[in-house]
């Protein structure tokens, strides 16, 4: 019985994680400017990572594999947001203004 509960729970987590990856992917493609795209992409780094890895850990059960998965999850949770931050910071330093695309689009709208 508990096996079944764990299985169902793990699949719910995996599907939710997959959904977050999908949302992140669509957002990266569709959102208007760099910062919003980065925001969407960083969704896969954090929320999707937690959900998917917890889901796989439930599948792995109480074993060495689960410990390794936890270590990888910790590593990804540390590096992913740091990489997002570094990207955003580098963009800001090189003079890219947040919301510029939005302002430009509005400006064109007024002109047209």
């Amino acid at each position, binding site marked *: 019985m508990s096996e079944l509960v764990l299985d169902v729970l793990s699949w719910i987590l995996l599907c939710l994680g997959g959904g977050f990856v999908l949302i992140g992917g669509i957002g990266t493609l569709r959102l208007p400017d760099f910062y919003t795209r980065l925001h969407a992409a960083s969704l896969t780094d954090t929320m999707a990572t937690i959900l998917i890895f917890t889901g796989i850990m439930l599948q792995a059960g109480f074993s060495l594999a689960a410990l390794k998965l936890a270590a990888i999850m910790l590593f990804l949770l540390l590096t992913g947001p740091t990489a997002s*931050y570094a990207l955003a910071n580098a963009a800001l330093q090189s003079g890219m203004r947040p919301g510029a695309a939005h302002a430009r689009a509005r400006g064109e709208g007024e002109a047209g």
Partner: protein
Amino acid sequence: MIIVFALFLLSLLVITALAIVRTENLFVAVMLTSIFSLLMAANFFILDAADVALTEAAVGAGITTVIFLSALALTAEREKISGAGWRIALLVVTVLAMLIIYATFDKPRLGDPEAPVHQHLAPWYLEKTPEYMDIPNVVTAVLGSFRGYDTLGEVFVVFAACIGVLFILGVKPGEGATIKAPHSAGLKHHLIPQVVGRLLIPFIVLFGLYVQFHGEYGPGGGFQAGALIATGVILYALLEGEDAALRAVPRGVLLALVIGGASLYGGVGLVCVWLGGNFLDYSVLAADPVAGQQLGILLIEAGVGMAVCGALLSIFHAFAARPTRL
């Protein structure tokens, strides 16, 4: 199911390759090359070649990207387009592609048990590894002992590459040169990457050592470990500045690692001859042939790891220490 995933990855590889060819921005090309390597690593993993996947991920996606970027800092970011000779290039590429496609008709199907490679040598390796070396990872046994000559050659290639790069790039600018080498300060003003990096570097190096000494039991070995440890030190150099990295691991130590690693490998072979065996026949290293083989593999893997780590770091420093073009 796995075949669908493999096809998906292979099509992504083709798309990435086309994108690399199409782009004129070299920075984008370097990033795409990194993605290409990562996809290739995933592909190797699907083909059950975990050792190769680890090497591809560590060297191809990790260190090569950093070295490409350091090289890019010395040159221009955009590709110089030369229109001349594209017809000849197209002709050569077409002919070569046709030849390769023609050659694949004779290739056995993927995973075909009747393929020639699975007929005599591979079964022999699988059968004899438990008997001769008694280690679980056959790849390490093949790499270190059965085909020790090839690996020795590879280590010498790495050694020669390192010496070559140092000869060309390691030269100090002359007295008259007005350009002062910039002392890269690293990412001093980027607090978050620095803190996270400091946290991670010890674990990266520790993982490298694990891969080094666990190579006989799991995927890994000298090449992967050397690349991983070099990645850790390069991360340190990127975060704290190149000078700090050189203080931590001076050039002398790097050269000693390269030379020491290559000599250790060759030396083990010579000791085998001295003890009455063949060159690189580790059975004579201990009273028990199996223990001798294990000792020999451990020693040569250490030599490989030292040489690769030292060579990659020397190459990185050779690029990073050049004055950037203004």
